[in-house]
Structures are given as structure tokens and as C-alpha cells.
């Protein structure tokens, strides 16, 4: 500021061209520390347990890819629950996060959609109600009095969809199921059902399908009782407060063009995804409707 002041004192003696140069130089001088700070601070990317598992190899490739595309360090932040990641995202403590459609709908006012994964050509997925393989059960109503495994209270496919289904039928989980518990992970829901700890579970259909390829011995011990309608795939979102951050745009570009890059294709192959697309917020209206159903039933 003192230096700036001394420069201002000399303004009167500078030519207009000089002034223009100076103004540009000042703007650059003012902008540089911010850019430098931005370059020093790693880009924080949050991951919810929607991820298949703590696959370190996948995380390594993802971080490498994002670092190369964002031109700086990327820190992958993961937490045990959706709630923790959502809180970090909404409060701006992470720059972007791959969250579930349910928290996105809940915090729509504070969040921007960065990109949405595309699976089998569409940014859509389903929620499955699963039970132990070979169990004679006719539809979801046959799961009454089960011990039921949910994924996460903030998960769309692992909780909201089933809760909404019950709400539509004027039921609450504690009335329909004898007991229920949260496993905080879709893979854990499959493990709980496969082991017999729970007789049924609510799970992300995408996770179930992908795991059927990766861990068939686990998944084949379960079967699908009900598939929900197609719903918006868990998106990558960023806080509205960072809308102007060029790295958010860079992230969107990186995600959308992931399939063009060798490292990116590795990530997509491991995730069994086609790529990322820019989808409109309306994609999540069906989820919002479920939230409303649940809210109305109470």
C-alpha cells in the first residue's frame, strides 16, 4: 500500500500510455499474489462413499489426471458419511465434490452442478432393493419384518428411494422393517445382505452392477427384489461461492473430456463409466419429488 501510494503521487507526471501500462502492471501485480496463492493451495476434491471402495489405485489415477488438467496439486478428501462431505462442500472447505443426488437436491441453492457421470450412455442410475440370493420373495412388500441395511441417511439410492417408496405406501421404515441400520457404504450393504446380517438392503444400482463384475462371489450371494425408476446419477458439484473460480471450469472441462486422455480413460474404465456430461439441474427433479413425498408423509 505504501509503495502503491508513492506510485500514485507520481501519476500526474506520467503520460496516458504510461498510465495504461502502469494500470495493467498494477492489475497484474494485484492479481499475481491471488494466482500464486491459488497455485500454492491444492485443489480439494471431495469423494463420498458412493465410490465402490477405497481403491487406492483408482484414487491415484484420478488425482494424477486432475492434477495434470488443473495444473496444480489436487487433494482428494474422503469422509465416512455423505453428511461430512456435504458439509465440507457447502461450507466451501472443498472446491468440488462427487456427492449424491439427495444432498444436491437438499443444498441446490448453494451448489452448482459441475458435471454428471454418464453410465450406459445416460446420466442416470437406479436404486435396488436386494435380498439374499435364492430367497423366495415377491416384490418389495415381501421384505416386511426384515432386518434392513441402508447405505447412508443422506443417500438417494441407499435410503431416500426406499423411504419414499414406503412413504408412498403410508409406511415408515421402522413400521415396515423389524430393524434397520446404516452401513455407510453401498458395498457394505451388499456385504451385510450377502453375509445374512441383514435380510434385505437398499443399494445403488450402479454400484451393485459394477461390483457384480469386480466381486462376483460377493454379489451373486444377493439378488435384486426391486429396481427403482431411473434417477439422476450422483453428480460432481461445487459451491456457488466458487462459481468464478477458473479451476471449477477447468475441472468441468477435465471431467467432460476425461475419455480423451489416457489417464482419464483408466479412471473411467475402473469406474465402468462412459464419461461425464454437463446435465441440467432438472435431471434431479425426480429425486426432489421423493424428498417432497417423504417430507409430506413425515
Amino acid at each position: 500500500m505504501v509503495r502503491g501510494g508513492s506510485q500514485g503521487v507520481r501519476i500526474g507526471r506520467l503520460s496516458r500510455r504510461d498510465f495504461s501500462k502502469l494500470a495493467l502492471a498494477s492489475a497484474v501485480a494485484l492479481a499475481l499474489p491471488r494466482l500464486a496463492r491459488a497455485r500454492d493451495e491444492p485443489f480439494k476434491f471431495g469423494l463420498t462413499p458412493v465410490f465402490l471402495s477405497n481403491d487406492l489405485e483408482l484414487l491415484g489415477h484420478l488425482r494424477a489426471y486432475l492434477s495434470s488438467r488443473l495444473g496444480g496439486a489436487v487433494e482428494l478428501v474422503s469422509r465416512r458419511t455423505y453428511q461430512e462431505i456435504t458439509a465440507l462442500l457447502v461450507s466451501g472447505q472443498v472446491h468440488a465434490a462427487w456427492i449424491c443426488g439427495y444432498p444436491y437436491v437438499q443444498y441446490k441453492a448453494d451448489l452448482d452442478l459441475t458435471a454428471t457421470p454418464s453410465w450406459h450412455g445416460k446420466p442416470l442410475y437406479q436404486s435396488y432393493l436386494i435380498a439374499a440370493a435364492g430367497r423366495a420373495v415377491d416384490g418389495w412388500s415381501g421384505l416386511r419384518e426384515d432386518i434392513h441395511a441402508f447405505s447412508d441417511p443422506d443417500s438417494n439410492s441407499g435410503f431416500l428411494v426406499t423411504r419414499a417408496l414406503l412413504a408412498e405406501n403410508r409406511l415408515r421404515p421402522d413400521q415396515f422393517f423389524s430393524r434397520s441400520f446404516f452401513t455407510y457404504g453401498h458395498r457394505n450393504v451388499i456385504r451385510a445382505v450377502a453375509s445374512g446380517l441383514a435380510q434385505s438392503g437398499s443399494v445403488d444400482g450402479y454400484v451393485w452392477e459394477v461390483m457384480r463384475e469386480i466381486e462376483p462371489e460377493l454379489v451373486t450371494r444377493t439378488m435384486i427384489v426391486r429396481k427403482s425408476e431411473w434417477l439422476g446419477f450422483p453428480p460432481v458439484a461445487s459451491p456457488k461461492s466458487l462459481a468464478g473460480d477458473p479451476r471449477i471450469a477447468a475441472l468441468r472441462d477435465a471431467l467432460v473430456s476425461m475419455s480423451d486422455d489416457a489417464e482419464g480413460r483408466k479412471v473411467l474404465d475402473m469406474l465402468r463409466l462412459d464419461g461425464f456430461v454437463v446435465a441440467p439441474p432438472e435431471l434431479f427433479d425426480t429425486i426432489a419429488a421423493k424428498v417432497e413425498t417423504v417430507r409430506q408423509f413425515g
Partner: protein
Amino acid sequence: MSPFRRWQAIPLSFRVPAIVALLMVVISAAISERVLDRLSHTQESYLDGLAGTYLDGLSSSVLPAVLRGDVWEVFDALDRSSFVYESLAPIETVVTNSDGRVLAASDPNKIKAYSELPVEYASRYGTEAVTIDEDRKTGFARRELIYQSQPIGAIHAAFDVSHLFAERREVLVTLLVTNAIVAGLFAFGGFLLVHRMIGPIRVLESHMRSAVHGAAEPISPDEIPPGDGEVASLFHGYNTLVHAERERANLAMQLAEEEKLSSLGRLASGMAHEINNPLGGLFNAIDTLKTHGQTPGVRDTSISLIERGLAGIRDVVEAALATYRPERSRRPLTADDFDDVRLLLKPELRRRRQQLEWDISWNGARELPVRGGPVRQAVLNLLLNAAAVTPEAGIVSLRAKDTGNSLTIEIGDQGSGIPPEIAGILVDRDPGPAVRAGRGLGLWMVRRVVDELGGTASIAPKNDGGTAVTLEIPFDREDAEADAA
């Protein structure tokens, strides 16, 4: 045969190795028992340690989840721990809350979450850290979950301990095989050693066996082991014994011969008397014949006297011949034999002015199936002895009785009794010691006769004083059968 005698009948070279092997078996059984006991303790403390570590680790990981009643977290901890603690081989782990309800079990299909813990789970624990059920080859352990001094639940764990038993069995088999091999080697070594040790004893034994059959030969110097002082001393001792025995036998034979000559001398002197006595009468008769031979009465009387005198002499000579001619000794006993003995004894009796009580109960048969020669010899010897020990003018007796199966002869005297060491020659099972003392050779000859004929002899004091020697001579069956045939 009793087991002990049967055992004693087994040769020493087999008995010693058998005892060595038996000792090895006993020792190995004791060692095996100690090893297995020690192993069992080690295994149990190892298992206790492992189980303690398992339960400690599990406690700390499930405690927060148990506090929250988080079924999934408890199950997840159990599921993950089953891979971490593979060396412990947990079969089943159940975590209950403070109400005893199941939060999660490692096998939820067997024990459902939120269910009551089966009753048998509570009763399966003992006082040890890990209670082992040997039938099911399973170990059980329980750990209370304590938080801020309050029990909030418990962990019930079951472990597969079959590997411990397999290890024990393996050790037992190894011990048995090793000990069997060692016992076998020791037994074989013992056999070789004993066989080698008793080798010289076998030499001695074979010499002794041949000595029993009458040919006691000294051990040749080649067979005496140079290095073994004890055995050499034993062999030298044996050789000394053989030489001494030979000398004693020679002496005994010599003495027997002398005794024979002595008794023969007495007999001969008696016979000379017997012949001499009538000789005076015979010469008188001849003188009478010379002087008054023409007188018919005197001549006949003198010739009759000469004839009777000569007949007496002939009888004496015949009796002596019958007694001392071996070729006549095998013929059966007749009454004549006793008459001959009487005749032979007569001079001795007369010399000592003794009387002879004579009682022969004969059943009328001409002869008895007993060899006559030896019996005459024995009876004559006993009667001569009886006459010798009976005081002058005393009574000597002879009773002979045919019992149907045997002949019983009793010779009585009025002597002061027979000393035990002399009596032994006649009645002891082994007359050797008494004979070797060089005394009572007359009796020894009697004993030899009695043994030869398979009979027995006994000595008893008589009611009216003096001693009675009784011979029991069985009838010779072969002869009897041969006669019958």
C-alpha cells in the same frame, strides 16, 4: 507252569534285553507323559495369549460401535478380524450388548442380529482364559466390554483348536516311534552285550553239563579269555575243582577197593574157619578109619562123618562162589541166596558169639523177580555191619518179606545207632558229600545196589534198642513181564 517260572525259563541273553526294552518303554512312557503335559501347557498358554490379543484387539475396535449399538460396525470389525487373526482360527465370534442381545455374529445366518444369545453360550466357559472342549476340538473365550467401569456388552469367541490336538498327536507319534526305535536298539545292543558277556559262562556250562554225565574235563587254556580276570579266575577255579574231584574219585575207588578186600578178607578168614573146623574131625575120622577101618560100624560112621564134613566145606565154597561171580549176579533171587548169606555170615557170628534171628516170609515161589546177586551182596554187607556194631553175644536179625510188588528186607542190630553223616550215604538224595568224606564205604556199596535196583533204603531205631536198616526193592517189571511172556 507259573508265569514267573516260564519267565525264568527264558535264557538270560533274551531276558536282559527284554528288561532293557521294558525299562526303556517305562522311561519313554514317563518322558512322553511329561513332554505331552508340558506341550499341552505351552499350547494352552500360547492359545490364551493369542485369544487375549484377539479379544483385546476386537474389544478396542468394537467398543465404540457397541456403545452406539451400531450393528454394521460391529459386524465389519468381526468380519475383518477373521482375516487378521488367521493363526488363531476363530470359528465364531458373537458380540452382545449390555442386555445380552446379539449385536452381530461372525456368521449372522447362524445367530441373527438383535436376537437373544443362545443359553448354551453362557454355560460353556470355565475358569481358564480359554476353555477347551476336547470332544468338539474347540476353545471358548469370553471378554466383557467395559466402558467407564460399566459393562456395555461382551464378546463370545470360539476357536478351532484341532491343530493343537493334531500337534499333540504328531508329537506323541514321534515320541512313540523314536522311543520304539531307541528301545529296539538298546534291546538289540543289550542282547549282543549279554551274549558276549555270558559267552565264557556257556563254556563253563557245557563243561559242567558233560561233568554231570561223568566226564568232567578241565577247560583248556585256549578257552580262558586273557583279558577278563574274573572269568579267568572262575575257569581256573573250575579246573581246580575238576582236578580235586578226580583225585577224590580215585581215592574213593581205592578206598572202596580196600573195603572190598577187607570184607573179602573177613569172609575168607570166616571161610577158613568153616573149612578148618570140620578138617580136625575129618582127620580124626581118617585116623579112625586107618586104625579101625575094618570094623564095619566104625567105618560107616567115619565115612559118614567125612562125607558131612566135606559137604559142609563144599557148601561154604559154593556160597562164596555164588556171591563173587559176576556172571551169576543177574539170575533171580531165590531162597538159596539168603541161605548162602547165612552160611557166609556164620563164622563171623560164631567168632563174636552172636545169634541170628532169621525170619523169611516167602510166598512159596521158587524165585522172586529181583536180581539175586546184588541183593545178596547188599544183605551180606548190612549183616556184616550189623554184626560189627552189635556187642559180643548180641542178637543180629534179618527179616525178609514178599509184599507182592516188592521185597522188604530189614536188618536189625543192637548197636548204638548210625551217625547221621554215615546214615546219609544210605538215605540222602545225594550221597556224594558223605561218600567224599571217605567213610562208610560198605554202606555206599549197599546204596549203589539199592539205586541200581531202583529201591529205597531207610534207617530207624528199633523199639528194643539198636537200629533197623530197611531196604525196599521193587520187583523187576521187565523181568516179570519177560517171565510172563
